[in-house]
């Protein structure tokens, strides 16, 4: 029985945390609030070249670090804690698809990601579909020059900064994964106003866009399921980090802010708010760590564990971030204060890849309760 991380895993966590604090921490969040979203390619490259984070789970022979999903989960937790506002989730999500393909195109793209020169995202959900719908109205037609893809993809994360997309599209033989560069013909990337200020989002319209088949119908559905499961746990990990950050901020503020001649943290009402949030964060954390372990260990129940982790982490983050605003009082409801960033992230990532309600419905379906 061992429910702790190995020393190397703890070291990885420390390295990521100190990198993010230094290069993408409170200052970056302040900038985000004052001047809006701006993607720092410098930080991105350093993250890839110095730490290898973008291709952490990609095999070494393909330019990655060959680490397991547990390591990946640790990184996501730290990303959520600092609210890193680069396209990390989107890019890593896409590498999971690419990693399932032995094609040259995949090889090349993975190497570019490893070098920090390529930002990816995954275009999966249709405008009208829910995250879990396996089908898609986006069509890919084989032509003598390769495939052409036509359709509209909604809620594509980090679309404004992506250099290329992996796209979930229907061929005559079944759903498949394609890779298309942002500059290809017929690509229209429509930016939208994202609830999450640190994660821009958009709608992607493709019209007869030339795209490379990455994973064909034989394997694509299995890759989709595996990517969905990983995405849920990655988001759960981010949300656990976000919840922890919001809780930490509440506690810090409650120690320093004085009203009625004493620190407000000495009032029981705030203590109990924080204690309840603490318990929820801890519970979400163990569920997330366990789901990540299950993915890494190839356990068959990983999908239902991912749903459990996702809904718990989303609720915990919304609770901790909501409390944080409440505990800060007036100042916590201002634009200038980063408290709303945590709440926005909590609700947006809570909805991404399935809301808590959708995941609870899925848990009941999977356990046929």
């Amino acid at each position, binding site marked *: 029985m061992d429910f702790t991380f190995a020393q190397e895993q703890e070291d990885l966590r420390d390295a990521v945390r100190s990198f993010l604090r230094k290069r993408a921490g409170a200052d970056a969040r302040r900038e985000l609030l004052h001047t809006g979203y701006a993607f720092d390619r410098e930080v991105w490259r350093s993250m890839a070249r110095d730490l290898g984070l973008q291709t952490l789970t990609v095999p070494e022979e393909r330019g990655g670090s060959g680490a397991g999903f547990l390591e990946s989960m640790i990184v996501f937790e730290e990303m959520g804690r600092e609210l890193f506002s680069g396209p990390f989730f989107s890019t890593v999500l896409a590498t999971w698809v690419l990693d399932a393909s032995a094609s040259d195109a995949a090889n090349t793209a993975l190497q570019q990601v490893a070098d920090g020169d390529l930002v990816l995202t995954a275009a999966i*959900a249709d405008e009208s579909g*829910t*995250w879990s719908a396996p089908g898609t109205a986006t069509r890919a037609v084989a032509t003598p020059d390769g495939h052409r893809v036509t359709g509209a993809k*909604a*809620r594509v994360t980090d679309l404004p900064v992506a250099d290329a997309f992996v796209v979930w599209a229907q061929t005559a033989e079944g759903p498949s994964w394609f890779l298309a560069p942002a500059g290809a013909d017929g690509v229209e990337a429509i930016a*939208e*106003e*994202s*609830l*999450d200020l640190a994660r821009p*989002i958009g709608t992607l319209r493709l019209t007869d866009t030339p795209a490379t088949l990455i994973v064909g119908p034989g394997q694509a559905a299995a890759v989709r399921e595996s990517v969905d499961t990983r995405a849920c746990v990655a988001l759960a990990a981010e949300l656990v980090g976000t919840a922890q950050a919001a809780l930490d901020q509440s506690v810090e503020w409650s120690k320093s802010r*004085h*009203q*009625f*001649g*004493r620190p*407000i943290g000495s*009032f029981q*009402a*705030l203590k109990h708010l924080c204690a309840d949030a603490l318990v929820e964060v801890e519970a979400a954390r163990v569920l997330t760590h366990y789901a990540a372990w299950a993915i890494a260990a190839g356990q068959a129940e990983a999908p239902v564990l991912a749903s459990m982790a996702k809904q718990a982490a989303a609720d915990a983050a919304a609770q901790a971030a*909501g409390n944080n*605003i*409440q505990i800060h*009082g*007036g100042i*916590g*409801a*201002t*634009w*200038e*204060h980063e*408290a*709303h960033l945590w*709440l926005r992230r909590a*609700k*947006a990532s809570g*909805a*991404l890849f399935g*809301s*808590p*309600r*959708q995941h609870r419905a899925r848990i009941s379906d999977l356990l046929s309760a």
Partner: protein
Amino acid sequence: MNPVFSTPVQEFQREFAEFLRQVLPAGWAGSGALPHDEFPAFAADLRRALYEGGYLGVDWPTEYGGRGLTPEHQVAVAEQLTRMKLPQTSLSDVFGMQMFGSTVLAFGTEEQKHRFLPGILSGEVKWCQGYSEPQSGSDLASVSTAAVRGADGWHIDGQKIWTGTAHLADWIFALVRTDPEAPKHRGLTLLACPLRQPGIEIRQIRQMWGEAEFNEVFFTDAVTADDNVIGGVNNGWRVATALLEHERGGAAAVLAVRFEEELDRLCELAREHRRDQDSDIRQRIAWCRARVLAMKLLGYKALTRSLRGQPIGAEAAMTKLYWSEYHVVLTDLAMDILGDEALVLRGRRPALADGPDAPGAPTDSAGWITTFLTSRSSRIYAGTNQIQRTLLAESILGMPREPRPA
């Protein structure tokens, strides 16, 4: 018991409805259906029409420009406005009419009533409220903005925060410390002070949903005349707390009508998302229905009390707690119904950042998401809900205060 408007009030309300129908354009779909940038001008026009029609401050005495009717008439006016999908005049009026106006009526001198009230009613003079300070949020009695009496009136130095609409206002009523030697609650005074003077600087505060409704107001040797003390020097705590009850208690019944309209819109949203037959959603909507009705009835109870000249007291805290916690649940439900669409703000933003969106608003995600954010601030302003709960426990239930620290 007869919890409906009395026959004369019903008649008055019908007249008013007829008046509004005359004023409104054909095919009126509600102020929430107006383009966002047309809303302020529309609200200003409406206010002018109401003033000229004699429907503002109907419960104020005639000598100060009112119509000398009852608070019941006033609630009937406000309710009718919402029923016809119109806004409640403006946020400035909340501070000017409901709060400062009521305070002057209760505590002002005859001279002050004649000087201040007609301008408030006509909209010529706009007011804002200066209570909170950066170091005095929940602990209002600790305000440190100081006023010292000189030959030419009071000289004010300090800083106020969360002064809604200060950037649009002409005057501020501020709680200031006039006796630094007296115990905390004893040395305070409520001062009316003109805003457009060199000693005052106003800085807008942007809220987390992107709009700037609040301000910081900096006083650097700002001056106001001697006769702008409201309710007596060093009597500010009593005046201010009475005033806070106006802020909290009065409008629960009217607010409930706005919440009703919002809940109808939520049902429409559920239909659009094909969640209206889901038993989880139906349970939650039904729960909301009962809460909104209870809110209205709590308002009727408070109205009955005020018609009998009884004080509302700490029960105003109950209404504030009830509606603001309700609104957090309601907007969470909206986010749940939106599902994936809660990720992106599409369509029209709310015209109002306080409680439900304007009546007739569309079901756009931008509206619901923004209201979700504003609902979080409703639990904070006018006294955090933690403070309200403590107040209720101590004032209504008589539970013992915390022992004083050693």
